[in-house]
């Protein structure tokens, strides 16, 4: 037996360089461990029953064998090879094929307490030989032992077992194998038999907690010697894609932003948003009271996206997909063909079905699978039923961050109870995260309720500051200019009545104008006639004048002739003239 004291200092000083890490390939786990598990060391994975220890260990080996070229040995103490194969198949792993390819070796160790009798001292050399044989047969670089503590139940003399386990971990380290050892959680300690005493390089704790009847799986790296790691408790999910860990602290503000735009699916709304719609990859919050048409806005956006040939993932927390399809058909939005083309996918679940973390994990998983360009979450407020505000805020923040990081345009709907967004509501908290905030308000007056839509904010674009009346017609959503007058904002039938009155007034005004025009025309005619008359008068006067002048001219000419004739007559040239002159001369 090796002295336990000799174990500690040796491995630490042996590696002067950085700690080398082995990627697990498990989504998210490599992120929080900053690269994976310590190479050549043994990692303890502990947790209560049914919290996913075996799956984690198995996935570590399968990814190692399939993605990282590191064959692995799985020593199963609890599950038979058949059970393990079934479990593996449920995660999509074909263990038999991996075994046939000599990438994986599974050894099922059966220890039946009832058929074992102890007589004298023993050791676990048999286990070492089996392990060694399996490792050598495929050249394994990874080992998983699940669950070592079965030995304590199956074999007598715990003191011997402890000494042998210490020897086992040392042996694994000496062979340079990266190993995962699972252990059941104990009442007063991490593990029931104190395995954490022997494994000190890396300890991961799994947990399956139930609060408010909702269970959440959580993972925490308790210890990671020689490496930075995320010490937070992070949720994880087990589904048909295996294990996925959701790092809380992947929050960053370094995501790419896009200047390209996507239509909101409602032309009138696009017009309000600078004529082009939302920014690609931005987050849009649509808040409004009950029945204000939030889902219709979401569905319009989804339909537009799919018609462009892009994928849209639609999360429903209130209604079933068929219900939404039926309701949307009534407003002229037919979603069924888009689902058939697999451009639109619905995922509906009750908020209370699982915890916030699980919802978030599921969103991650589905988004990774479907890779949509647009996601709609309808509504986010229902999630409040299953978590306090603090949790909800953190979940939403991470969710928005996740979508932004992937350049997915996201539309969130939020139910507001009051007509004004109240201070304590969660939307105020996330409003700083969203890029565009559209509010659908109930406008109640004259015994009817109408909807008014306005854009509270829209970052980075010129947007309308107007309230529009929001109408759900059987051709989809229409936004109509509301009547703004001395009576304030008028919508609905009040607006209609006002518009009819306006129309009548307009007609009246037009008639008046025409009348006035006619009067002017008449006046113009009259004036023209007057001008003509005056002109004629003037012409006549001119004529008279001309004649007079002419006459004057003529008489002047005659006088000159007469004088000439008289002058001639006086000289006796002209008898006729002389006669005349004679007479005249005689007379005086």
């Amino acid at each position, binding site marked *: 037996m090796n002295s336990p004291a000799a174990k500690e200092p040796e491995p630490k000083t042996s590696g002067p360089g950085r700690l080398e890490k082995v990627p697990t390939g498990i989504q998210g786990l490599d992120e929080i461990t900053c690269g994976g598990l310590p190479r050549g060391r043994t990692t303890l994975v502990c947790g209560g029953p049914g919290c996913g220890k075996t799956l984690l260990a198995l996935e570590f080996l399968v990814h190692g064998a399939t993605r990282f070229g590191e064959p692995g040995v799985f020593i199963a103490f609890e599950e038979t090879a058949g059970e393990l194969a079934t479990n593996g198949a449920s995660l999509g792993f074909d263990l038999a094929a991996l075994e046939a390819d000599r990438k994986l070796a599974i050894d099922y*160790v059966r*220890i039946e307490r009832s058929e074992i009798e102890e*007589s*004298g001292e*023993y050791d676990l*050399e*048999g286990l070492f*030989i*089996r392990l060694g044989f399996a490792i050598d047969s495929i050249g394994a670089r990874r080992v998983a032992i699940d669950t070592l503590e079965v030995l304590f139940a199956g074999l007598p003399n715990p003191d011997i077992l402890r000494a042998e386990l210490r020897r086992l971990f040392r042996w694994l380290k000496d062979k340079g194998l990266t190993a995962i050892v699972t252990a059941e959680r104990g009442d007063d300690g991490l593990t029931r038999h104190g395995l954490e005493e022997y494994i000190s390089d890396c300890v991961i704790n799994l947990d399956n907690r139930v609060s408010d009847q909702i269970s959440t799986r959580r993972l925490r790296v308790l210890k990671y010697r020689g490496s930075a790691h995320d010490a937070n408790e992070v949720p994880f999910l087990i589904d048909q894609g295996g294990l996925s860990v959701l790092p809380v602290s992947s929050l960053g503000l370094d995501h790419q932003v896009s200047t390209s735009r996507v239509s909101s699916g409602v032309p009138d709304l696009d017009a309000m948003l600078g004529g082009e719609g939302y920014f690609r990859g931005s987050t849009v919050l649509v808040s409004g009271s009950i029945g204000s048409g939030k889902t219709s806005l979401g569905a319009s956006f989804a339909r537009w996206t799919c018609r462009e040939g892009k994928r849209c993932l639609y999360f429903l927390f209130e209604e079933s997909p068929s219900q939404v399809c039926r309701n949307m058909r009534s407003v002229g939005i037919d979603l069924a063909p888009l689902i058939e083309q697999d451009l639109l996918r619905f995922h509906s679940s009750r908020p209370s079905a699982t915890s916030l973390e699980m919802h978030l994990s599921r969103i991650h998983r589905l988004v990774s699978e479907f890779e949509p360009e647009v996601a709609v979450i309808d509504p986010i407020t229902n999630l409040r039923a299953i978590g306090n505000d603090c949790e909800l805020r953190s979940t939403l923040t991470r969710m928005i961050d996740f979508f932004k990081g992937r350049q997915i345009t996201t539309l969130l709907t939020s139910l507001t109870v009051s007509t004004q967004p109240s201070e304590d509501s969660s939307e105020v908290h996330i409003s700083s995260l969203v890029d565009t905030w559209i509010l659908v308000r109930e406008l109640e007056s004259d015994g009817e309720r109408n909807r008014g839509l306005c854009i509270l904010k829209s970052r980075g674009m010129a947007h309308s500051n107007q309230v529009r009346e929001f109408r759900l017609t059987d051709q989809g959503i229409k936004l109509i200019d509301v009547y703004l007058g001395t009576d304030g904002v008028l919508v609905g039938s009040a607006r209609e009545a006002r518009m009819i009155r306006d129309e009548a007034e307009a007609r009246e005004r037009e008639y008046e104008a025409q009348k006035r025009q006619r009067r002017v025309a008449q006046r113009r005619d009259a004036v023209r006639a007057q001008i003509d008359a005056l002109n004629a008068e003037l012409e006549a006067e001119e004529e008279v004048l001309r004649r007079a002048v002419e006459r004057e001219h003529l008489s002047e000419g005659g006088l000159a002739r007469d004088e000439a004739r008289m002058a001639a007559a006086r000289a006796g040239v002209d008898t006729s003239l002389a006669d005349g002159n004679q007479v005249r001369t005689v007379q005086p």
Partner: protein
Amino acid sequence: MKRDQEPIEKADGPAGMAGERIELRLYVAGQTSRSLAAIDNLRRICEEDLKGRYTIEVIDLLQTPQLARADQIVAIPTLVKKLPPPLRRIIGDLSNSERVLIGLDIRPVDPAGAHHGS
């Protein structure tokens, strides 16, 4: 320890005794003192109590490691009673003869023998 690969002792005594033949297999790993002690202890017990109706096969897992998996061996040394059923395992160096006999679930040849009722 080459001879351990094959049955090393066969005591073909008169088969007319009450019990059937007992097939035993002892798994060891190399010639450790514990392994040698187990072999010695087993021989002694068999000669004393099962004379004439036992077979012992000693298997060195260092030489045939694949048998460790096939026969579900974890602890060393392990004595397996293959026949008659039920299958029983006794782990340890077999220093406690009484526990070995209890573990094998077999009674000595002579019911009136000295080992009874102590």
